[in-house]
């Protein structure tokens, strides 16, 4: 019964919360409309038949988000310094990273993390060979970059999604 009306309970909950935050109120009318929106859009989403995500560890997901936020702040200042000082010796380049992660949702989150962090950008991913190519603005050591991505982001994502 619950599955019938809430095929994507987490998505429906998120949509309802977004509606409440948008309206900045907990009035009965807003609450009711939020719940209706959550259920309605959740059902509409089912028509698209997206592959289901299985989040295994919410605590780890929260910790990962905090870590990413910290990394975003730090690399913001690092990239700002690079632009202001314009170091001529700065070397940029592509790095190929062999991935263990194959879950589509995990890869999507990894793409968001890498591209949101200034200084690194997701370039391409080959699902057959499971090789990810990123572009790094200030590339010092290829192996260090590979280890950083694998240790800091891929490992927690493997635990969360796979």
């Amino acid at each position: 019964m619950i599955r019938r009306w809430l095929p994507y309970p987490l998505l429906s909950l998120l949509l309802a919360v977004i509606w409440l935050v948008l309206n900045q109120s907990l009035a009965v009318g807003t609450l009711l409309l939020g719940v209706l929106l959550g259920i309605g859009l959740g059902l509409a989403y089912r028509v698209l038949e997206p592959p289901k995500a299985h989040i295994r560890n919410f605590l780890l997901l929260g910790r990962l988000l905090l870590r990413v936020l910290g990394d975003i702040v730090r690399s913001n200042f690092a990239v700002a310094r690079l632009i202001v000082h314009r170091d001529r010796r700065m070397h940029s380049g592509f790095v190929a990273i062999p991935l263990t992660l194959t879950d589509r949702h995990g890869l999507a989150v990894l793409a968001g993390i890498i591209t949101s962090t200034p200084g690194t950008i997701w370039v391409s991913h080959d699902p057959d060979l499971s090789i990810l190519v990123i572009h790094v603005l200030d590339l010092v050591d290829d192996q260090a970059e590979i280890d950083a991505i694998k240790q800091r982001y891929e490992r927690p994502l493997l635990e969360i999604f796979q």
Partner: protein
Amino acid sequence: MSHLDALPPWAAILVTVLMLLGASLACIGSAGLLRLKDFYQRVHAPTLGTTLGTYCMLAASITCFSVLHGRPIFNEILIGVFLTLTAPITLMLLVRTALHRDREAGSDYVPKSPHKP
């Protein structure tokens, strides 16, 4: 500007610092478009404005209006959430387009496609 007079000094200072920081980051990011050398370097620069630059502006807005109205107002957070979800998609599309063009042109700088030796 009259209603902003109600803002206590500590909040005014905090809001100013956050706004200046956010604006500076967005400005440096835009300057990066001019100063960096090639497309793949330049595409890194606007992320300053879409990440910490925006977060600082949103924090300033949240602080300002929460203090003025005397209750927490935080619907600005949604701007940050939506921007964080959508900005990377635009950047990745731009990079992939550039990569496709450079590969077609036979550039040595970009990595070769694994399927076409």
